[in-house]
Each structure stands twice: as structure tokens, then as C-alpha cells.
């Protein structure tokens, strides 16, 4: 019986989720530190986010995020509200936000590749295309 009790308690621990700062990774084609700061601030303020990634590329911004397990029910709402917030922060950028796991993986790959120019553009467009797919 003791083993079952400790198993249940550790599941609860996982469910409550870690409350410390979410892991945020960003990349900016034109190295504009100021824009990166504002984005990172916006992302870390939101308590619900566990992990996020953002890529800037001349007036195009692609953000992906992962929410805490328990608040996955409201994943859509969180994504919409964050999109509005980021749009207000970067009015002149074409902002795209997604909370899909695949997009997060792809975006992290793009960040690691540190690619430049047209290749980065192609990757970002590909990611946006992938997210729109319905079936």
C-alpha cells in the first residue's frame, strides 16, 4: 500500500507543474536586442507558459509556446490572448503564434540552425504553412 501512496503523490507533484520561470529561447535575424527583451518579458510574465520560442525576421515574428499540462484545456484561449498581446507590442510585425508541439520542435530546430536570410524565410513560411493545415 505504501508504494501506491507515494506513486499517487508524485503524480500530483507533476500535475501542479514547476512554477519557476518558463524556458524561453529566441533568435533575431537583425540582432535587435530591444525587441527580443520585450518579447521575452511578455512570454515570462504569462504564468501558464512552460516553454516558448520566438524568431524575428524583418517584420515577421513566429512564436510557439507550450502551456502547463493542467491548463491545456484553455490552450486555445491562452494562444489567442498572447497573440493579441504580442501584436500590440509589435504593431508593425506580421505576428504568428501557435501552441502546437510540432511547431515548437520545428522552431527550436530553426533557432539551433542559426540560418540566415532567404533560407530562414523559407523555414518560417514552411512552419506557418504546416500550422494552417487542417487534415
Amino acid at each position, binding site marked *: 500500500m505504501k508504494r501506491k501512496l507515494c506513486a499517487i503523490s508524485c503524480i500530483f507533484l507533476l500535475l501542479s507543474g514547476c512554477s519557476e520561470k518558463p524556458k524561453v529561447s529566441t533568435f533575431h535575424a537583425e540582432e535587435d536586442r530591444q525587441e527580443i527583451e520585450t518579447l521575452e518579458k511578455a512570454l515570462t510574465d504569462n504564468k501558464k507558459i512552460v516553454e516558448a520560442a520566438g524568431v524575428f525576421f524583418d517584420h515577421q515574428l513566429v512564436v510557439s509556446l507550450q502551456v502547463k499540462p493542467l491548463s491545456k484545456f484553455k490552450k486555445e484561449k491562452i494562444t489567442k490572448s498572447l497573440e493579441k498581446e504580442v501584436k500590440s507590442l509589435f504593431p508593425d510585425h506580421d505576428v504568428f503564434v501557435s501552441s*502546437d*508541439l*510540432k*511547431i515548437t*520542435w520545428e522552431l527550436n530546430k530553426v533557432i539551433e540552425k542559426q540560418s540566415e536570410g532567404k533560407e530562414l524565410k523559407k523555414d518560417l513560411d514552411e512552419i506557418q504553412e*504546416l*500550422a494552417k*493545415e487542417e*487534415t
Partner: protein
Amino acid sequence: MDAKTYQQTVDQIAPKRPVLKNCMTAFLTGGIICGIGQIVSFVYMYFFPFTERTASNPTVSTMVFFAMVLTGLGVYKKIGQFGGAGSAVPVTGFGNAVISAAIEHKTEGFILGVGGNMFKLAGSVIVYGVFSAFVVALIKTILVQMGVISW
């Protein structure tokens, strides 16, 4: 021998279904099948261009493929006897229903047997799935056009 007193005797003596044990085995079997489903959808997401939402289609097809292999080898009916609803409710149960009927009626020929009897068990699922979807979508569309609710 009137029916009511007899039914009381039956209720006393006939062995009851072990509901608690069945629920636990159903939970275990259903959980394992959905766990495998989650792993399969991760595989599709990792290696192929599928998002979390669109990965469900290939996952369902793969689970039906697993159901075919298990049904053909005669393993699925043992899982069914052990798991009960745990093996019937997931989409593998739907696949098993279609595939077992297809295998069963092969002896009556492919057109009349397999063709005519394939949806003997699972047909009701499709029919009432489509019909209920139609009714729900119809009501919602009408309500939206009356402006009561929005999409």
C-alpha cells in the same frame, strides 16, 4: 412457475458480472491502447510533417492496422474477453468489429459475404455517428443564423 418469483431465484443464484474487476481491466486495457496511440502520434509528429492536431488521422489508421493484425491472429478476442469495453471502445474495437466480420464471412464469397456483412457490427456506429453529427450541426447552424449564438 410464474416469471417474477423465478427471476428472483435467478437473481439470487446466477453469478453476477464482476463489475469492479471488469472496470479495472477495462481501465488498464483502454489506458494501454490510448498510451500506445499517444506514442504512435508522437512518432508521426517527430518523423513526418504532422501537427499535434493532424497527427490523429494517421494514428487512427495505424491503430486500425494493429487491430487487423491482432484480430487475424486470434489475439484480439482474448484481449476482448479480458478487457471488455477497454478493447471495444477505442478505435481498435471499431476496427476489430469490421475486420472480424470480414474474416468471418469470407466463406460466403467476397461480394455477398465480405461485402455484404462487413459492417454488420460496426455499421450502427457510423450510421448514428453521421446522423447525430448532422442533427447537432443543423441545430447549431440554425441557432447561429438566428444570431442566438456565434460560432
